[in-house]
């Protein structure tokens, strides 16, 4: 949790610096020491403060008539101070210099917007025309020509970073209500221009940015009391003239009816921003206050009222806020810890490992989130790589809303457009794939589609649904009604895919699927499109192949030769033998049943439903299971060939389950008798076989033992090598 701690006054301010927008200070910049700040007022003075001692260490002024036009910065490398007065005159001095008139001076050819000083790098000078020079280059030839990058745009804000030892400069310009973002890498001589997506009726007021993993995150405080996030990748290959960068809502500055009118803000860490602004509840007088917001949970974490008013400027260096409060410069210390839901409920673990199997891992949100949402903005090709990440984070953040303008519109259009139109739109949407959170968006879309399906029986965008499920990013819980609708429509293919893909299907639905699969006739199924991968390698699809095998020899045991005391007539017996030899269901049905066998279930919850299965269907299913069991036992490793084919333990579990659920029915049912006796015979043969194997194992073990004993015989000649 973030918290605001103690506050103290750093210094009083002159008449120029004070309350109200447009007044205040020119800027506050960090000094050479972490504890130092450089204060530049709007006049001609700059002062160096030691914050912890609350006292000035030095104060420098330019001559009367001159005015400092650009915040004084400290060159961290040389510990020199750099100032620009009258837009074009550069001054550089050291701590021991007293009179600014006597220090180094250089007159430049263009007007300077700002100087950005970076640790371990040469300061960057940003000219009002958008040109950028490093200080050393500039000082070599102060009068050098500075190009004009921006025509008649006005720089609103700029910031510099160091990314992999390369200085990166970002600045935002405005022209006629349009905002543009420029990213410059002076060393690479690269310049990229982005157009900031327009927002109706509101303008960006303040900007801040941070860089992480080659991505600049630009946060914009809009006049609509919201903070938006714009992701700008640094490694941009295309040299397009102008790209529009979309923004996503990060934070809504409203607390229970009252709205914070922000004026400036800073980023504290990946989850927290501090906003200075005035809180206006309806019908009440607005109060200025300093607030810390958690962007992950959209909550206000700390706030401090500032009754004496501020200049609307906020700086933050080294866990301290600096702002003018009344007639003084106030310092507020804050604490900000990483917040997570786990921490909030007291279940924070130390390890930050992401578990792929779980759907929501609150701990791993954050950095990845950023990456993911960026990736989803990139090309679709990238997406396949990031699938796993996406999966782990699915439905992660309900608070991140998809791009409301397009998706929202689409959701609206789902309600009435025709199937073809919707599918078309969907295709467009997916190919565009610029949604910040693909998962959540898809969830929303599918829910909307399903709702439409429910109300409109004719509407059924089957292809899209299949496509979506096959992407493997959905789960039952994300779209609970999907399977219900599919069941209603008897869309067995969709159900099959769902059973194969969804990890969290309730037993009730599994049972419903089973029932539907068993009830549909094979003739109908032959005409449907079912994935036959799981059966193709052990069921003869061609009916005329059935006569190839004449005798079934399972594991070397001929079931026919087994003498048995069951009172089954020979007729039935042969009939049953046939049924063991040939699959009792069609390949399509078998594939569907395999999907059921494959799905996860819990016995306790499945058994009550399974009892409702009609007797005929139960017998059919049991017959199929028996067939699978026999097929399995043919192979020495007791596995069926093929992809997604059921394992022997799955078959056995379902067999037991089915017999448990329908024991009395099976006993009573005349047509089950043959099946049961055949099964019994087979199982008995198996048991006998395994007991034989047991014996062999015993003898082999004995042999092994004897071999060991041989070692300790009374006399032996052995070879011993000594080295």
């Amino acid at each position, binding site marked *: 949790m973030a918290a605001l701690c103690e506050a103290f006054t750093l210094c009083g301010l002159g008449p120029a610096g004070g309350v109200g927008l447009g007044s205040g200070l020119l800027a506050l910049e960090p000094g050479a020491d972490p504890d130092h700040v450089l204060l530049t007022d709007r006049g001609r003075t700059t002062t160096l403060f030691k914050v912890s001692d609350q006292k000035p260490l030095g104060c420098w002024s330019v001559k009367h008539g001159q005015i400092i036009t650009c915040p004084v910065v400290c060159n961290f490398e040389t510990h020199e101070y750099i100032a620009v007065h009258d837009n074009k005159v550069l001054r550089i001095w050291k701590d021991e210099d007293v009179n600014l008139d006597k220090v180094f001076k250089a007159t430049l050819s263009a007007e300077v917007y700002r100087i950005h000083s970076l640790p371990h790098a040469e300061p960057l000078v940003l000219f009002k025309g958008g040109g950028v020079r490093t200080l050393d280059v500039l000082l070599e030839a102060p009068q050098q020509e500075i190009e004009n990058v921006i025509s008649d745009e006005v720089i609103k804000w700029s910031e510099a970073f160091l990314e992999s030892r390369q200085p990166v400069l970002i600045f935002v310009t405005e022209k006629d209500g349009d905002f543009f973002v420029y990213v410059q890498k002076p060393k690479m001589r690269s310049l990229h221009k982005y157009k900031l997506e327009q927002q109706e009726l509101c303008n960006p007021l303040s900007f801040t940015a941070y860089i992480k993993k080659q991505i600049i995150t630009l946060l914009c405080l809009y006049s609509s009391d919201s903070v938006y996030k714009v992701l700008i990748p640094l490694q941009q290959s295309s040299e397009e003239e102008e790209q529009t960068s979309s923004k996503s809502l990060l934070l809504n500055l409203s607390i229970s009816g009252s709205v914070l009118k922000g004026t400036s803000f800073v980023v504290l860490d990946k989850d927290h921003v501090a906003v200075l602004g005035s809180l206006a509840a309806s019908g009440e007088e607005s109060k200025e206050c300093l607030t810390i917001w958690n962007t992950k949970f959209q909550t206000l974490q700390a706030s401090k009222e500032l009754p004496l008013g501020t200049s609307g400027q906020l700086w933050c260096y080294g866990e301290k806020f600096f702002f003018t409060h009344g007639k003084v410069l106030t310092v507020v210390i804050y604490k900000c810890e990483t917040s997570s839901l786990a921490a909030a409920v007291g279940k924070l673990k130390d390890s930050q490992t992401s578990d792929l199997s779980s759907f929501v891992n609150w701990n791993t949100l954050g950095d990845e989130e950023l990456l993911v949402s960026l990736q989803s903005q990139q090309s679709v090709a990238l997406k396949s790589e990031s699938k796993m990440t996406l999966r782990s984070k699915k439905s992660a953040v309900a608070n991140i809303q998809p791009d409301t303008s397009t998706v929202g519109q689409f959701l609206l259009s789902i309600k009435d457009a025709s199937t073809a139109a919707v599918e078309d739109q969907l295709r467009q949407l997916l190919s565009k794939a610029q949604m910040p959170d693909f998962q959540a968006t898809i969830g929303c879309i599918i829910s909307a589609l399903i709702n439409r399906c429910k109300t409109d029986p004719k509407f059924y965008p089957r292809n899209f649904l299949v496509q979506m499920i096959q992407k493997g990013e959905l789960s039952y819980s994300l779209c609970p009604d999907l399977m219900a609708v599919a069941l209603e429509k008897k869309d067995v293919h969709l159900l099959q895919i769902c059973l194969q893909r969804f990890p969290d299907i309730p037993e009730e639905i599994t049972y419903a699927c089973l029932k539907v699969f068993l009830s549909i006739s094979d003739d109908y199924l032959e005409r449907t499109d079912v994935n036959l991968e799981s059966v193709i390698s052990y069921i003869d699809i061609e009916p005329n192949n059935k006569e190839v095998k004449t005798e079934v020899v399972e594991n070397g045991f001929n079931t026919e030769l087994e003498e048995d005391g069951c009172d089954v007539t020979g007729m039935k017996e042969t009939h049953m033998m046939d049924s063991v030899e040939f699959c009792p269901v069609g390949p399509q049905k078998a594939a569907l049943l395999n999907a059921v066998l494959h799905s996860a279930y819990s016995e306790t919850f499945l058994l009550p439903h399974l009892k409702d299965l009609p007797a005929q269907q139960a017998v059919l299913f049991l017959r199929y299971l028996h067939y699978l069991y026999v097929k399995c036992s043919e192979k020495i490793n007791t596995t069926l060939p093929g992809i997604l084919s059921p394992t022997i333990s799955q078959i056995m579990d379902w067999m037991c389950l089915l017999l448990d659920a329908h024991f009395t029915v099976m006993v009573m049912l005349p047509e089950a008798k043959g099946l049961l006796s055949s099964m019994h015979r087979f199982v008995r043969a198996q048991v006998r076989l395994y007991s034989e194997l047991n014996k062999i194992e015993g003898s082999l073990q004995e042999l092994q033992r004897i071999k060991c004993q041989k*070692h*300790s*015989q*009374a*006399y*032996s*000649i*052995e*070879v*011993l*090598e*000594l*080295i």
Partner: protein
Amino acid sequence: MGEFEVHRVRFFGLVPAGVRCMAYQHNGRRLALARTDGAVEVYNFAANYYMEKVSGGRERGGQGWRLFGAGLSGDITEYDLERLRPARAVDGFGGPIWSMAANNDGTRLAIGCEDGSVKLFQVVPGGGVQFEKNLDRQKGRVLCLSWHPSGTHLAAGSIDFIRVLDVHSGRTAQRIMVNCHVPKSKKRECVVWSIAFLSSGTVISSDSFGRVQFWDWERGTLQDSHTVSSSAALSLAVSEKEDSIVVGTSAGATYQFQLLPVKAGGQEKRWVRTKPFQHHTHDVRAVVHTPTALISGGLDAQLVIRPLMEKVQKKGYDAALRKFTLPHRRLVSCARKARLLLFQFSQHLELWRLGSTNKTGKDGETLPLSRMPEHLLQLKSKGPEHIYCSCVSPCGSWIAYSTASRFHLYRVQHEGDSISVKKVPGVPKLLLPAYQLLCASDSGRLFIASDRGSVHVVQLLEPGGCKHLHTLRPPAGTREAVYLLASSADGNWLAAVSGDWEVHVYSLKHFKHHCTVPTYSCAVTALAIHPTTNNLFISYSDQQLFEFSIPEKQYTAWSRAVQNSGLHKLWLERDSPITHIAFNPKNTSQVLLHDVYMLCVLDKSLPLPDDSAVLVNQSTLKQLSEPARRRQLHAFKICKKFQVGSPLLFADLLDERCLVTVERPALDISAQLPPPVQQKKFGT
């Protein structure tokens, strides 16, 4: 270095006899141990528990120092520890003697007899004992005796009761019924197996009910009773300070009791059972409590020395648990040329011919046998006396053995597969007793180690005769007998070690004393003369190795180097002595050494390992590449194939590529022991 064809022999069916009783002499740090077959052994604790003396006994033994023995024959026997044989015997006239105890100053000996009498004997300073008087006689054999430390009273344990006898008057001062509180209906005979009399007047008894009981002898009351076992508590020993006792039971467990204050710092003390140990599988018939260790001996033939860790100051040789099952003597002799092995049992000898193979193989492989080993001969010794030593000549045609009083020489004739044995008549009578026999490498002479440091040289004559040539004696003379011999291959030199650990070298050409190896304060465990260099290789019980050049009469340079750099720490910490040394006839630098647990080929041409090196490195070396191997090589090439489960009795080099080892798997020994007391095992 190369591959050896190892003949692993496991058919030597030696079963060591169980331990019957023990006596510990504190000043000399020696332990006398009598086995059930009547053999008496003396272990020198100062010399790393080396079994320095063995005396072939007759039946059952007893105890004392001077060493006295008594047995069912009814005689009290004094043993001559220098000549290693019974010296004098006196009849006790009380039937079989069940117990014997000497008083604290060693002037009187009390015996408990079958007829229930306790007799006092005076120990005569010159030797022997003299009958003093009979104490009060009561019916029932006296199974155990204990003197009060002051020597005024004797406690005697019988069946069902304990008596305390006044030595001066000879009267019974107290009679305690051991199981008087047991109801009559359940009454069984209660045998008091062992008894101890403390100076405080407490009598401690251990009985067949598994109880250890503490009695006040004057009042005849029971002070304390501990049941340690469901079977009998057989033996009992008290520490010198009388604050600790050790009890051995027939279940193989030993228990320590300690006299401890009831409260810390309080005055009142009680006997508390503190430590149980289970080192034996059978009856623990004898226990001894030394100041630093509990020693127990059982019918499973094991002697276990369990140090009391709280009494041991530093980690050293004394701080480790020791177990001895097999004697430190050589019971196997090998005819290298004829490839015969002679096994010595207590009453007979066995001659075996080794098998052979015509295949070769890689390391670790077992080769198929082309000929099985063959049991050629069994020679039974007549009379009750144990065979003391034996030898077979290198050519395999002579076998000699000696008992305490007789020496036998046999001529063995091999005619194809058949074998005939003929006793050599006219063996010189003056030679006895013999402690060690050795045949010269050309089988022409037999050396017989005898008492007073003398070695007899006997010429073996074809086709079957012998002639006494000479008797070698040390120039200064000694009272101790010779117990180890070594002769050189060229027949010029003979080295003999006597009980005072002096090594004398004699010239056989001139039958003259040649030199004496500088005395080293430890027992010699094995020695051998190198066939080509005539260097005498000696191993001592503290695991030191010396090489002494006989022609130059000084230690060799290698020996000095070993002493300078010191042997490896682990080598010195081994707990069984080297019992045999052999040389590789083809490689002068290689020496074969073995103890119970390992076989070592010492290559003198390689550097000695320092303490940081891995001593047992054969398995590591086998995994290394050739150049890496060369860096890791050191002089000791130890083969530990013969682990604890299968102790190594004997190892010898038959030729440069052929080794013979005689192992005695511990499992085989225990299989031949009588079944132990039935123990309830869980689940049976």
